């Protein structure tokens, strides 16, 4: 049976409401399963990469082989067999696409179904999209308009060839290959992702967005995103992701690096909706992601906003390294876990420069039998004179079989630094549910209302176009969490 039919049938059978669970039947170009030097050489040659890139990958592979998978996170998952994964899968005929007319109509349909029309006339006003399907970027919209402003927004595979000086300078500069097990793996095998460069003094005229889709079975997705905001520039970037509903687990190990120079600002928002597994905990994505931003320049700012609703297991700590004096790091997070989902997520704020300031607002919601952990580190280095951090961690429990955990690590090496940490845990009570029910709201509507109220501070940080979607998503992910 072709994959498509099989999966649609599965989706119909499954009681779960994950509406992005379909898969697309496309001709694909796949490398053999497993990982060795030859696979890396193959990926590199498929992408026509220059020699230096291949060398960089091979070095990463050497590092990775010597590393051990981390075990400190509060998540449990079966051992991953890294030789049982496809590291390269690309829809055929996607190389060197000049325009949308050349994109496989099946692919365009897939994105329409996902609510991401790539057709520029139909697209969300003011949002340029880079669509990454399994291992490759299939299309990037609005490139002309962006080029006029000097903004570079393209697949990283292309940037390696067209802007090697920028890629060479910045790749691995924030997250070195040896940073952790998954960053080393990603550095060796990353296949695509987005590259953004905002030149000096430019305010990017539209939202930039990358939409990741894992389609193929047993395929890992290892994308790599690199965003550089030069002096006095600004960009707002949004990442969205979904995957078909499958019984087996799939690995997603991305690396995202952000760099801001003097007075520059990057606002990075994520709505993560990978398949979370079914209500019995079967299937789902393992989301092991390294995201870090470096505020290199003075007065620069990096702001992470994430709404994490999907994935079976999430391991993710978008962080900021505040080098520049007066630089600002922000982390706004909503992490929802239901059924058997596990999330260990949070942030690191590393203060190096004077008067640096960071804000952490984390809202964890656990339902079903899920486990939700906030893990956050605030470090004030000796040079961080008058640095300030404010952390607010709130957990909301739905039912009594789930868990919420808050693990803050706080270190100050400068006495003038000021750190504030607040944490609360609350529960949706029977009284609250009954009050809402007596007003005609269903249990689902009631939970969604209370939860959306609970995360409002974070939701308001999302770009307008996406906050409505994100609110609905919260409702959907908590379906069946009470009663």
């Amino acid at each position, binding site marked *: 049976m072709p994959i498509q039919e099989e999966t649609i049938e599965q989706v119909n059978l499954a009681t779960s409401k994950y509406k992005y669970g379909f898969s697309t039947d496309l001709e694909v170009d796949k490398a053999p399963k497993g990982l060795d030097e030859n696979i890396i050489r193959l990926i590199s040659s498929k992408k026509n990469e220059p020699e230096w890139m291949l060398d960089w990958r091979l070095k990463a592979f050497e590092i990775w082989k010597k590393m051990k998978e981390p075990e400190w996170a509060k998540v449990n998952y079966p051992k991953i067999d890294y030789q049982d994964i496809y590291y390269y899968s690309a829809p055929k005929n996607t190389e060197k696409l000049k325009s949308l007319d050349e994109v496989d109509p099946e692919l365009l349909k897939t994105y329409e179904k996902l609510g991401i029309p790539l057709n520029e006339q139909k697209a969300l006003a003011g949002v340029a999209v880079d669509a990454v399907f399994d291992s490759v970027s299939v299309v990037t919209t609005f490139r002309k308009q962006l080029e006029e402003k000097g903004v570079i927004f393209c697949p990283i595979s292309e940037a390696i060839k067209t802007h090697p000086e920028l890629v060479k300078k910045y790749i691995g500069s924030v997250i070195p290959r040896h940073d952790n097990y998954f960053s080393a793996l990603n550095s060796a095998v990353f296949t695509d992702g987005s590259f953004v460069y905002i030149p000096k003094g430019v305010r990017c005229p539209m939202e930039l967005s990358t939409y990741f889709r894992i389609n193929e079975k047993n395929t890992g997705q290892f994308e790599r995103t690199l965003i550089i905001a030069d002096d006095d520039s600004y960009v707002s970037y949004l990442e969205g992701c979904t995957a078909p509903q499958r019984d087996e687990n799939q690995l997603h190990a991305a690396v995202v690096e952000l760099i801001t120079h003097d007075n520059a600002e990057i606002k990075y928002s994520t709505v993560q909706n990978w398949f979370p597994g079914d209500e019995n905990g079967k299937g789902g994505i393992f989301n092991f992601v390294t995201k870090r931003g470096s505020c290199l320049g003075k007065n620069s700012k990096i702001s992470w906003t994430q709404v994490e609703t999907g994935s079976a297991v999430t391991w993710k700590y978008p962080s900021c390294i505040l080098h520049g004096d007066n630089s600002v790091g922000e982390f706004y997070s909503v992490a929802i876990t239901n059924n058997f989902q596990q999330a260990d997520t949070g942030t690191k704020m590393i203060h190096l420069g004077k008067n640096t300031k960071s804000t952490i607002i984390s809202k964890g919601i656990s339902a079903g039998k899920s486990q939700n952990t906030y893990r956050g580190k605030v470090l004030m280095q000796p040079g961080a004179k008058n640095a300030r951090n404010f952390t607010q961690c709130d957990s909301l429990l739905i039912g009594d079989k789930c868990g919420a955990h808050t693990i803050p690590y706080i270190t100050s090496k400068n006495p003038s630094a000021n750190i504030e940490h607040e944490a609360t845990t609350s529960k949706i009570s029977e009284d609250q549910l009954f009050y809402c*029910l007596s007003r*005609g709201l269903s249990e689902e509507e009631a939970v969604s209302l209370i939860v959306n109220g609970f995360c409002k501070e974070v939701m308001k940080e999302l770009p307008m176009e996406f906050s409505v979607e994100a609110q609905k998503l919260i409702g959907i992910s908590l379906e069946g969490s009470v009663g």
Partner: protein
Amino acid sequence: MSLLKIEDLYASIGDEKILNGLSLQINAGETHAIMGPNGSGKSTLSYVLSGREDYDVSKGSVFLDSKEILDIEADERSRLGLFLAFQYPIELPGVTGMTFLRTIINSSRVAKNLPELEGIELVKLIREKAAELEISQDMLKRFVNVGFSGGEKKRFEILQMALLDPKIAVLDETDSGLDVDALRIVGKGVTNLKSKDRGMLVITHYQRLLDHIIPDFVHIMVKGKIIQSGGPDLAKLVEKEGYKSFLNGN
């Protein structure tokens, strides 16, 4: 035909028998008052009517518009036109009054096959009804019942009632915690909501509320049962003499 018909209702919680064979009928356009000593089961009656799950209903039936509702969930009962103004309204941190009202209005409109209200239209409707109850715009920006004064909570309950436009409204001690002015505002608000299509059941301890909302019938409830019914004068008798005579007399 009666809008609400309660027949020989028994309800308990754990081993505690609270309602013991209660019967009551309310026709469209009528306002009934229930009075009774503390602990006689008045709030329990209101919860059982509106579908709270903690109670074990061992006997009896409740009809709303001739539909038996005891097997129906609380939200569905609300959509069928039953409303309860809580004796102790519940706090919803994070949910602003405006958001809450918008959500319940649209959910009830969808149930009635009416189009959802958006933007100006919705805000206008809410403001108009809020103004009648002297509820300020600022109060609607606050989280539902969080830090509301006793009087504000009760006015917010009546506002919800006005917006949901129920067929049967049960008001549980809506007068408690109200100062003289608030009592007048709420009394007027409820009286304005009287209509020939609506039935009301007003639970109270005091005549003062009934001075504003003049009932057609007054019932005395003791130990989970109505032991005497009469006209408005019955409430005045209670006010004057307490429940002693009823307890002894029966």
